[in-house]
């Protein structure tokens, strides 16, 4: 088998290169990739690129566990410590602030809604709506004057009821 490896296309060989470099291919596949790389400069470049990549993955020395780490951990475990993970440095405050801000925003929105409703009731009882409707009608009239068009063109049926409809539409 070694002397007669399966011939690979460039696409097939390129796909196998990572596994080849990781030592994950069967002997037969490795022989085929090796043979292809010897024959094909383009795929050899691909393999070189992958090989170069591995040089970035150099390991640092593993930091020593603190003195007494294993004893401390096993003591904690046997003491029933639930092992709730790790307050994240510099981020725990964010996670605790967000719910508070959301609750505050909701409360403020509710307060504003109540305030708006109260003002609405008061203004209705004081006839404020009618005043505003009249003002609005005056504005509409000015617009129609400027455009030279009659309000009746926009509001069908009873022209006399136009102002009322306009007011109703805006309520």
């Amino acid at each position, binding site marked *: 088998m070694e002397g007669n490896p399966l011939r690979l296309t460039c696409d097939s060989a390129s796909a196998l290169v990572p596994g080849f470099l990781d030592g994950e291919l069967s002997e037969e596949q490795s022989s085929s990739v090796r043979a292809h790389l010897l024959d094909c400069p383009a795929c050899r470049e691909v393999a070189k690129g992958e090989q170069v990549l591995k040089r970035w*993955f*150099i390991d640092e020395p593993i*930091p020593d566990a603190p003195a007494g780490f294993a*004893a401390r951990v*096993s003591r904690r475990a046997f003491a029933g410590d639930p092992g709730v*993970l790790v307050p994240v440095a510099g981020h725990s405050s964010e996670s605790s602030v967000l719910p508070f801000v959301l609750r505050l925003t909701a409360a403020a929105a509710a307060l504003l809604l109540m305030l708006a409703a109260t003002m609405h009731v008061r203004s209705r009882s004081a006839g404020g709506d009618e005043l505003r409707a009249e003002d609005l009608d005056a504005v509409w009239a000015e617009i129609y004057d400027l455009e030279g068009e009659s309000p009746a063109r926009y509001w069908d049926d009873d022209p006399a009821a136009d102002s009322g409809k306009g007011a109703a539409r805006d309520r």
Partner: protein
Amino acid sequence: MNTLVMEQPAQNDAALVQETLEGNQLSFQLLVERYQDRIFGLARHYTRNAVELEDLVQDTFIKAYHRLETFQHQSSFSTWLYRIAVNTCLDFLKRRGRNPVQTVEDPELIETSSPGRGAGSLGSPDAALEREEIVQVTHEALEELPEIFRTVLVLREFEEMAYQDIADLLGISIGTVESRLFRARARFKEAVLRLHPEFGQDGR
């Protein structure tokens, strides 16, 4: 305490697990001592902060203790423990709110340039950089990767795990390991070149 521990005859993991379950604190301590370096080695790829690192490792072992009854001996204890460690690290990053775990079905993740050819030409770090600088650049680039990619890359390139072991640990198929590695390497190259364009082969 450590001297006492060192004088114990070597026991296999299964025996230590059994003794721990029977309430022997020292047996669990032995398990921690046996694997603490490896878990520290894994977790440091997820944080550079020494306090966070220690917390991550500690939580890994405490979780392992609480779940020890669920260990079925179907995989090795080390694989089982690694799985807990990886999940603890991923939970940690998720809680941190940075670079959340994304699924491979995410179209953005699927749509990536072809590794090797299209991902740019990353040069070799050897000539220009000190070892510490390479480590720093690599860590920066790893931090840019979605967690599913960072994890397979760490397990393969630093922990030197076989594809099958990675698949077992993450509960995915070998094909998925291969495709994630494929994309992870492309993303890693892109990240290094984006963060440090001077390391492109044309720039050297």
